[in-house]
């Protein structure tokens, strides 16, 4: 499975010290918890050592993966025939999401994935239509921890957005 090859490459980047910490997010990350929704790319959130520079640079990541056969395509790196987008942790919420990422194993392959409560909070923060749909699916999932999610919305200033989302959902059948 191509996605497993991508997970193996991400783990290799950590082992080789290129990436400090990473976690799969977006639609692929959400698939670990809810039903799959069609997507064309893989979102990977990353933390890496910024002590040497005030600016976040993805260059070392691009160099590493292109040396291993990946191809640059616009804002993506094509790995195992999937466009992969590396997103630096630039908000406190994403920072916290990476700290609390969950280690999973799929068919013997290790991978770090954002927790579903953090994915839901990021969906609430981002707020596009597809994010709202995803958020409603998380809420309906039997394993979703509402208290944990509620604490995240308060901690990261999302209570107003949450209230608006609840009002929107109350209008639905």
């Amino acid at each position, binding site marked *: 499975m*191509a996605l497993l090859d991508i997970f193996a490459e991400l783990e290799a980047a950590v082992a080789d010290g290129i990436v400090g910490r990473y976690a799969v997010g977006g639609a692929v990350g959400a698939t670990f918890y809810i039903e799959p929704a069609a997507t064309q790319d893989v979102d990977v959130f990353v933390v890496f050592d910024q002590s040497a520079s005030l600016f976040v640079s993805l260059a070392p990541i691009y160099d590493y993966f292109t040396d291993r056969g990946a191809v640059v395509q616009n804002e993506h790196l094509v790995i195992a025939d999937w466009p992969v987008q590396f997103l630096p942790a630039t908000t406190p919420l994403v920072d916290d999401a990476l700290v609390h990422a969950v280690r999973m194993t799929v068919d013997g392959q290790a991978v770090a994935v954002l927790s579903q409560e953090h994915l839901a909070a990021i969906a609430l923060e981002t707020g596009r239509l597809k994010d709202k749909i995803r958020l409603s699916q998380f809420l309906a999932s039997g394993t979703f921890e509402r208290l944990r999610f509620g604490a995240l919305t308060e901690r990261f200033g999302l209570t107003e957005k949450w209230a608006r989302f609840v009002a929107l959902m109350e209008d639905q059948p």
Partner: protein
Amino acid sequence: MRFSMDEALRVKRASRVAMTATPIAEKLRILERLRERDRAIGRAVIALEQRPTRDASS
């Protein structure tokens, strides 16, 4: 057969519950198949758009 929104929502909810319990590896395979399907549709649309059209003046 009449369409029932309630029935459609019931089936959709049941499908979601079943899918949540589906093993992750299987869901990732479904994700790959969904992407392949969308790419095939995209290729078909491009092929249609690039098909030579008949000259309207003839």
